[in-house]
């Protein structure tokens, strides 16, 4: 049994040579509600996940589901309240700033907004070179920057230009170049193409695929666009309301989703062939209020299969088959679950 009560707060998906291991990580933010009362929002709630070397982990969820917070936790841009994050086996907690700086070389991030993610006062080359300056590599910087800019498809002339002179797609290439110039092993891509046109999206996605091979990278790919994620990901993790609801191979989750939320997502996916399925699964109910989360499963209010049990407890991730985990009472292995899930 993979109960969350039994381990140190979470379960890990089994994978060989994990480059990053997230174990029972939680992060809360203190906020004030409309009446000025102090509240706590659980942005990320006991998430456990691991990414294997050379793999792309797609992280999917709606706005506010905590996927960007999780990305920032992985890069230690914010500190987790609970849980352990290991990068190449090394616990990131309590590292000195010097040790952390060395690790930061190996994990980089590509940001969502191609407009605000580059310093408007620096040239493209300087924007990319800054990472090298930080690590005291000024001498090699120029050559390295040109190499990586060429790799992402930008010219020497563009290297001398300022961000405003480039298009959104070109800027996102700069963004990618900035991450790659440190020769990282893990790149976290936070919605890297969602601000781009469809045609440019395809170019950038292909570029990312090519670079992954060339630089032997692992990706954490965050998106809410299921078509994009399907194209990019080997593994998939679905987040809802700060928790993982389903993890597993992307191919499996796309063809045979188990969690009702994943099903909802997959069936809401616009496609050419599955039109008739489109309206079969209507979204009902309200998403939960993050300031006043109700007891029980957070998807309960919108779930077509919710039972009394769902309001009593919170289901934890359990194995349904090898490498496929679902956090739902329909799939927790109990007899009742088996009976219900056979009906669904």
């Amino acid at each position, binding site marked *: 049994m993979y109960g969350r009560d039994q381990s140190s707060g979470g379960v890990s998906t089994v994978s060989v040579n994990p480059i990053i291991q997230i174990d029972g990580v939680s992060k809360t933010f203190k906020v004030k509600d409309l009446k000025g009362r102090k509240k706590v929002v659980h942005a990320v709630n006991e998430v456990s996940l691991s990414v294997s070397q050379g793999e792309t982990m797609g992280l999917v969820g709606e706005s506010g589901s905590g996927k960007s917070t999780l990305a920032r936790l992985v890069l230690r841009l914010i500190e987790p309240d609970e849980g352990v994050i290991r990068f190449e086996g090394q616990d990131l907690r309590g590292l000195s700033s010097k040790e952390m700086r060395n690790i930061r070389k190996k994990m980089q*991030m590509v940001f969502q907004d191609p*407009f*605000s*993610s580059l*310093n*408007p*006062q620096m040239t493209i080359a300087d924007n990319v070179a800054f990472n090298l*300056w930080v*690590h005291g590599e000024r001498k090699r910087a120029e050559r390295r920057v040109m190499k990586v800019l060429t790799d992402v498809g930008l010219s020497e002339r563009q290297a001398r230009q300022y961000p*405003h002179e480039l298009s959104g797609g070109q800027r996102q290439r700069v963004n990618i170049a900035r991450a790659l110039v440190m020769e990282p092993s893990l790149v976290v891509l936070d919605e890297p193409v969602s601000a781009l046109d469809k045609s440019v999206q395809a170019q950038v996605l292909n570029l990312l695929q090519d670079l992954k091979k060339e630089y032997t990278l692992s990706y954490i790919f965050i998106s809410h666009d299921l078509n994009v994620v399907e194209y990019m990901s080997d593994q998939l993790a679905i987040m809802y309301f700060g928790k993982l609801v389903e993890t597993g191979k992307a191919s499996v989750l796309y063809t045979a989703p188990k969690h009702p939320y994943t099903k909802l997502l997959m069936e809401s996916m616009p496609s050419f062939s599955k039109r008739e399925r489109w309206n079969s699964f209507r979204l009902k109910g309200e998403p939960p209020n993050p300031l006043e989360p109700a007891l029980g499963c957070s998807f309960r209010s919108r779930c077509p299969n919710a039972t009394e049990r769902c309001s009593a407890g919170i289901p934890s991730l359990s194995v349904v088959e090898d490498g496929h985990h679902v956090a739902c009472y329909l799939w927790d292995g109990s007899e009742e679950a088996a009976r219900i899930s056979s009906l669904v």
Partner: protein
Amino acid sequence: MEIAVKKLEPVKKPDLAEIEETGQRKRSFIHKLYQDPIAWASTIWIVLVIAVAALAPLLTPYSPVSGNVAQRLLTLGSVGHVLGTDEQGRDIVTRILFGGRMTLLMGIAPVAIAAVIGCALGVAAGYFGRVVHAIIMRCLDVFYAFPALVLAIAISAAMGPGVKNTFVALPIVFIAPIARVTESAVKRIKGLEFFEAARASGAGHWMIIRHHVLGNIFRPVFAYGSTLIGISILVASSLSFLGLGVTPPTAEWGNMLGSLKDALFTQPAVAIAPGAMIFLTALSFNLLGDSIQDALDVRS
């Protein structure tokens, strides 16, 4: 028709667009100023004042400090004294030319000093955590409690008259508003993704401030500071007028006005000259500052 169209335009663009368009602004900034007749007029006046102040000794045969007592309070248009003479027989034109040096210095220097200190405080307040922010901003709030002129008079009165003390009093007046403008600019930058990218690279605070913060706060601070020069001239002149700033016999428009006020009943036209110079110069700096702010502002 034009008004109706204007109203339909969005009032505020998001901050991201604002920062992002800095580059386009760079080109259109000069272009916009170039097309602005008010900016032209005020620039011409300011350049003129600077030029005649710099060349003052070449433009007049008289001394700014010693006069001919026999020729006291000559009226406008007197032979050899176009704007007349003051109560000690000194040529008004000469005094205005030399006085312009002092007035310009007291307009620009305090703002420049305040910009350096205010930027440092503003960056510290905006960049570092809540505690530093609270300490700096609450201290600055104290200065905000007083109007600029009252504060300047209070500081000058406490420290005694003299140019040196004016150069202490005026920057103190301007530090608080400049620091506040800087702080809000820094906070905006902190919310942008390139700032987060810099943090993700493991850069130290100084590295981030030098490369990513300072370059991006220059424009708003410069635009705001340029509007303060006019105010600085007014406040400095007021201090001199009250006998708290530049002390006689040094020529300065404010203290010229102060000494000529007694002659107001006998030679009103003569007393108007330094007042008109203060008015026109302060107004020009103010209008130019406004034009710069408009030209830099992407929302306009």
